[in-house]
């Protein structure tokens, strides 16, 4: 694999306070990398530094080995899909999509040919004469993507592109975007705060917190082998057991519940059920551990196990291999 973007000890300060502390990162050609984190974690700032809208306070960004610090945004060979799409309201769909080629003075015949290709691709051919105001949110989003990919960028930057859409539409567009990326073979750098979205689409996820990249790995590894306390608690639900200076994280679905009267060496904790939440395919069972103020959460799938009720006394067990040891 070839590195397409290299961040070399990038740092960003705003008015003297550090927003993104120095770090380095390599992004591979053709990969779908997601920057995931809560709002204000610096993920958008990082994306905007790559696009050229923010200047890193120190460090250098390389695109295919060439430093970018002296390259203004309009000369960088990458394109961005903005959060609110930023479609030009005074232009039609067609004019919006052709904007990049026009500015670069690509010849007319090629403009038309690429326009047709892209319109086909995003299925907007019939809406080409409309203005953005006359389009639905999902359609506007397609225009934003079409407007970017018509330029054949080396990297596509996406800043929460699905954030403004409703849940159902978001789900279907996630798959579409993933397929688009596979077919075009363009590197995607995708910013989101939605972990499900990140899990569903990414080759690699960089989990960010307070400007720092906490962990960068495949979705499965992020979920199963979190390296920091933040990742363990931010991604999915988790139970954290603190013992003798070390913390152990165990996912709720890995917890096994047993009736109290059966003695077994598998039982690691005991407690009383305080709440049972029914979610269709799943029940969430909250248990107060004996002799502590701590609650743990266990997931139980609908077709398995015992019909647990509130106030049942239970024993809890899990397999050693499902434990993730973290520093507290």
């Amino acid at each position, binding site marked *: 694999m070839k590195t397409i973007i290299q961040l070399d000890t990038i740092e960003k300060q705003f008015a003297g306070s550090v927003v993104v502390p120095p770090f380095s990162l390599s992004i591979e050609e053709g990969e779908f990398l997601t920057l995931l984190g809560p709002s204000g974690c610096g993920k958008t700032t990082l994306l905007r530094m790559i*696009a*050229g*809208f923010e200047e890193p306070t120190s460090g250098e960004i390389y695109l295919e080995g060439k430093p970018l610090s002296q390259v*203004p*945004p*309009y*000369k960088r060979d990458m*394109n*961005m899909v*903005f959060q*609110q799409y*930023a*479609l*030009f*309201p*005074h*232009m039609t769909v067609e004019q919006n999509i052709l*904007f*990049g080629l026009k*500015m*670069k003075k690509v010849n007319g015949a090629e403009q038309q040919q690429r326009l047709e290709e892209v319109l086909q691709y995003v299925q907007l051919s019939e809406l080409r004469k409309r*203005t*953005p*105001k006359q389009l639905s949110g999902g359609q506007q989003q397609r225009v934003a993507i079409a*407007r*970017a990919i018509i*330029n054949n960028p080396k990297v596509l930057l996406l800043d929460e592109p699905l954030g403004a859409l409703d849940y159902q539409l978001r789900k279907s567009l996630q798959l579409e975007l993933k397929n688009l990326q596979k077919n075009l073979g363009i590197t995607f750098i995708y910013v989101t705060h939605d972990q499900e979205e990140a899990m569903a689409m990414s080759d690699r996820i960089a989990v960010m917190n307070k400007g720092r990249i906490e962990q960068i790995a495949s979705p499965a590894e992020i979920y199963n082998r979190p390296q920091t306390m933040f990742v363990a608690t931010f991604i999915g639900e988790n139970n954290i057991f603190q013992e003798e200076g070390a913390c152990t994280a165990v996912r709720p679905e890995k917890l096994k519940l047993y009736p109290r009267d059966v003695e077994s060496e598998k039982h690691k904790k005991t407690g009383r059920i305080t709440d049972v939440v029914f979610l269709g395919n799943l029940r969430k069972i909250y248990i107060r551990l004996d002799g502590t103020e701590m609650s743990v959460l266990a997931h139980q799938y609908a077709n398995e196990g015992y019909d647990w009720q509130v106030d049942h006394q239970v024993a809890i067990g899990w397999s050693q291999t499902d434990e993730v040891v973290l520093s507290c």
Partner: protein
Amino acid sequence: MKKRSNALSGFSWLMIIFLYLPIAVLILYSFNESRINAVWSGFTWKWYISLFENRQVMQALSNSLSIGLISSVLATVLGTAASLAIKHYSLRWQNIINGLIYLPIVIPEIMLGLALLILFSQFQVDLGKATLIMAHTTFSIPFVMVIISARLADMGKDLEEASQDLGATPWQTLRYVILPLIMPGIVAGFLMSFTLSLDDFIISFFVAGPNSTTLPLYIYGLVKRGVSPEVNALSTLLITSTVLLVIIAELFRRKDSKTIPY
């Protein structure tokens, strides 16, 4: 509760009558046959006709229009250019420039008139149309900048960044994205400047020369001599054109940036 709100609405209508009654009376008496104003003696257009036959009035009108046109073009160009450039300056400079822009709006008008009079006399510039144009441009620039800056702020930086991201140089972005989007603001700024110039009395009073009398100055001359139907007619014309211009400007200013026809 009901009684109170009736009293409130009654008072409010009274205030609107207070605001409009004098203007209505002025307009009404511009159509009064009699020269002795207070007695209504029949409808006539004759005062308007006599205005159009009065060479001095026509001269003042032509002065007002030419000064208004030139000063508002200048103010619109200068104000628009400065509004576009201002955000590229450091915050410190932006504050200084903004101070410079807003100060003329907040200080009493008479100050600017007098200060300009001093300037022109120190540099021995003859008072006339040129000094009026300079003065009117100066007080219009801040208004243009206020309108255009508001529109630029409304537009946000997304569209500008999107344009750059798609490969447009700053000049191309200006030409193809920013200017078309702020055009209604530019038109509103121009109309506003024109109105301010057409309507200005206080500043013009100090910087006009004997051969550059504008309509408000001419009206002032007549007012000092007393009430007459000609003044009523001339004032009515000034009121009508001012109000029309302001309403048109306001319509442009309010035009939603998301629905500009292109």
